[in-house]
């Protein structure tokens, strides 16, 4: 029982990170239609933004986190200008290859800047453990789940209670109609990229202390975020959350109870199964709540 | 002999009844027009006949054999042909290659035979000079004629035409009517024509089937249909712009 609680906590924490990465991916996809294959590199950059601010620049934690997220917001804006705008009318395949190409650049730029030796990104709850129902779990893992819940709540407020969020949802549903309504579509699309990058940044900052900060961490995260997106329902925010949690739990529980070698096969097997049987994912109609 | 027979064809989309118990029988070598106001179910009927939309109820026979459950390509190979409302050609293939794709549904033809069959079809339609052209370079009228040629190259026993005159200028419409008459004298095939251009319908059709709100409300010779009070009320009354010109 104690083992199970520990596993569930770790699974939910990992799943929260995947969920945030998937949400960032979905917000960009539903607003711009771009299948961003560099989404995993966004999370990697988030982790290394933390490394740069906390370890290299030695900033205190709240300031360092804020600085890292501001850097991610700027990166999102840059990505919008340099990658999205030139490719916005290209076919799906060209966009996939283009974002992969820029992902290679990001990964190697990080390699040049930070080297291949993995970093250990500190957590505000470094080494802290508490007992929950007889099981010892890390405070960081609980904080990750809590932070994700808060982020999702803030995102919901943004999308439903603010003018910019409501405008974003209008753009996601129908760009032409949104333009006719007088919305400044290009600004909203840029904001989607910024929001996506910031969410990936949060995911990266939370993941850093759980894994080692490694410049090659992007691809595995991207694959998990894709699996989460497909399982939850392409373009659906609740779907991204459910899918992310599911993939995280499947990974941690699968490794423990089934096979650590084949733990990743579970997520991809289920992803392919969903594509074949229910390609619209768990949350079938991704119309209402697209970011 | 009846070439195509649809019996009790019903198509329901949720609460909407797009087709209700429609019976249609097309005789060999017959020219039938299918008319009705917008939303009457004409295109739905064509989609059910060609297998793009499964019917909720009803049966379809082609040449005496049931094709109710057959796939679209199997129906085409069994002798059905169709063109679309907006002319759907394969943009990455040349005009000749488009027609060769149509000709390939008759089995056992070599590549050389396919090409000569396609060239012959194009010549007959007066489009021989367009054979090497790219689709993107064609005028709208020519696109529609090439699509018709592609359907004919498959040597159908019955050809379904979905508003072939839509978007054509009056000269092109005259040309289309001449071609359609020539096709019938050369090919021995039945034609089902969906058309809003009443002048064209009255001059070409031997028999007219009228749909309204998914039901067949009248059927008969052009003269009889024109005089049918139900048609006048439900159809001509609904939009006087459709009146014969």
């Amino acid at each position, binding site marked *: 029982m104690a083992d199970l609680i520990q596993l569930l906590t770790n699974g939910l924490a990992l799943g929260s990170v995947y969920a945030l990465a998937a949400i960032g991916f979905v917000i960009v996809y539903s607003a711009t239609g771009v*299948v961003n294959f560099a989404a995993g590199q966004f999370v990697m950059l988030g982790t290394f933004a933390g490394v740069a601010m906390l370890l290299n620049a030695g900033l205190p934690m709240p300031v360092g986190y804020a600085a890292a997220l501001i850097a991610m917001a700027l990166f999102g804006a840059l990505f919008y200008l340099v990658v999205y705008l*030139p*490719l916005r009318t*290209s076919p*799906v*395949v*060209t966009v*996939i*290859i*283009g974002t*992969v*190409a*820029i992902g*290679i*650049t*990001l*990964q190697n*730029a990080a390699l*040049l800047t930070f080297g291949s030796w993995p970093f250990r990104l500190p957590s505000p709850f470094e080494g802290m453990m508490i007992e929950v129902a007889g099981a010892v779990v890390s405070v960081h893992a609980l904080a990750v789940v809590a932070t994700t819940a808060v982020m999702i709540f803030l995102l919901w407020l943004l999308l439903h209670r603010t003018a910019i969020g409501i405008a974003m949802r209008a753009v996601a549903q129908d760009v032409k109609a949104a333009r006719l309504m007088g919305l400044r579509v290009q600004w909203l699309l840029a904001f989607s990229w910024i929001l996506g990058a910031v969410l990936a940044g949060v995911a990266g900052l939370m993941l850093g202390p759980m894994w080692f900060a490694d410049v090659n961490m992007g*691809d595995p995260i991207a*694959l998990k975020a*894709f*699996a989460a997106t*497909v399982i939850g329902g*392409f373009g659906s925010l609740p779907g991204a959350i459910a899918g992310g949690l599911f993939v995280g739990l499947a990974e941690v529980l699968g490794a423990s109870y089934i096979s650590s070698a*084949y733990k*990743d*096969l579970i997520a991809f*097997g289920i*992803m*392919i199964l969903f*594509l*074949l049987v229910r*390609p619209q994912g768990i949350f079938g109609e991704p119309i209402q709540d697209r970011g | 002999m009846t070439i195509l027979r649809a019996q009790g064809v019903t198509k329901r989309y949720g609460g909407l009844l797009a087709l209700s118990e429609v019976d249609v029988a097309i005789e060999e070598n017959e020219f039938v027009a299918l008319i009705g106001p917008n939303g009457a179910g004409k295109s739905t009927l064509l989609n059910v006949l*060609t297998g*793009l939309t499964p019917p909720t109820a009803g049966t379809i026979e082609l040449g005496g054999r049931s094709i109710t459950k057959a*796939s*679209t*390509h199997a129906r*085409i*190979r069994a002798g059905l042909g169709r063109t*679309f409302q907006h002319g*759907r050609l*394969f*943009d*990455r*293939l040349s005009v000749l290659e488009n027609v060769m*794709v*149509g000709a*390939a*549904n008759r089995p056992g033809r070599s*590549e050389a035979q396919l090409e000569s069959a396609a060239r012959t079809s194009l010549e007959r339609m007066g489009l021989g000079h367009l054979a090497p*052209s*790219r*689709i*993107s*370079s064609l005028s709208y009228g020519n696109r529609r004629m090439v699509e018709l040629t*592609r*359907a004919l190259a*498959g040597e159908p026993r019955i050809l379904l035409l979905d508003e072939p005159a839509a978007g054509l200028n009056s000269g092109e419409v005259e040309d289309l009517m001449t071609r359609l008459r020539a096709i019938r004298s050369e090919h021995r095939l039945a034609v089902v024509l969906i058309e809003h251009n009443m002048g064209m319908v009255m001059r070409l059709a031997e028999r007219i089937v009228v749909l309204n709100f998914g039901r067949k409300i009248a059927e008969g010779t052009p003269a009889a249909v024109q005089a049918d009070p139900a048609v006048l009320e439900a159809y001509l009354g609904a939009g006087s712009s459709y009146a014969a010109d």
Partner: protein
Amino acid sequence: MALRVLALAAYLAIGLALSVSVSEYTLRLLNLATISAVAVIGLNFAFGYAGLISLGHAAFMGLGAYILAILTTQAGWSPWLATLPAILGTGLAAVVIGVPLLRLKGHYLALATLGLNVSFGIVAANWIELTGGTNGIAKIPGLSLFGHAIEGERPFLWLSLAVVAVLAVLASFIQRSRYGRAMMAVRDDETAASMTGINVTATKVSAFALSAIYAAIAGCLFATHVHFISPDDFNFAHSITFLSMLIVGGEGTIAGAIIGAALLTFLPEWLRVLGESYLAFFGLMMLAILIFMPTGIVGLLSRFRRSAKREAPPAPASSGEGART
């Protein structure tokens, strides 16, 4: 027709000239380029003609390579004999996978095939008794012809150049047959294709299987060239590379597949003069190519050719603007 014969002659002339004039290292790269070319000519069936976005092509290459490697090293088969089950088995696998999977379109199919490629890698890395796990399979025997072992980079290059030539000619015949036209028709408009009597599902599955067969041949060449394979040789990054090669060269064309394979094999090597940052620049260059040459090199060349024709005196009014050739 004349242009295609000319292109084939030019390809063989350039290949042979290079094979006797360049360094051992460049020969090795040329071998990798020709092996990739085989895979990319295959991918052109699935994507270039039938429009199926496959990010799992490297898995089929890997399946072919592993079947050959296992049969030769564990069952003692001769490599030539082992190519048969490698190629046919991979083609069969593509049919079995393709029937359910190819109902998906666009990025759904891309992600499904990507998941397939990742799953293949996981199995190859963990089914240790059969595949040797991450250590891979070593000591795969090389091919021999008329009693002569095809060893060393130069003789192997002659073989692989010949294989590319034969497979390119075959692909060209398929492209210009009813089967090739059916694939392109399906990509352009599935409904209209079915309305000309084309069996859309069968056409997609055959295009997918044909592409897998070419990938398996590339896998057999790879295994007998390098004599060693491991899961990393066939991970999903390679699938993306193959698709990049096809798009950079010019999708829908066989020449584009070959040019793209050669260019993207050599481009990173040429960029090595930039030092450690060469891969970062490679990514940027790829992005620039996609933005400024969306139809690839062959698309660009044929646009030049067409505009040159248009300037010539009897300008045909009907020459189109379509970018694909």
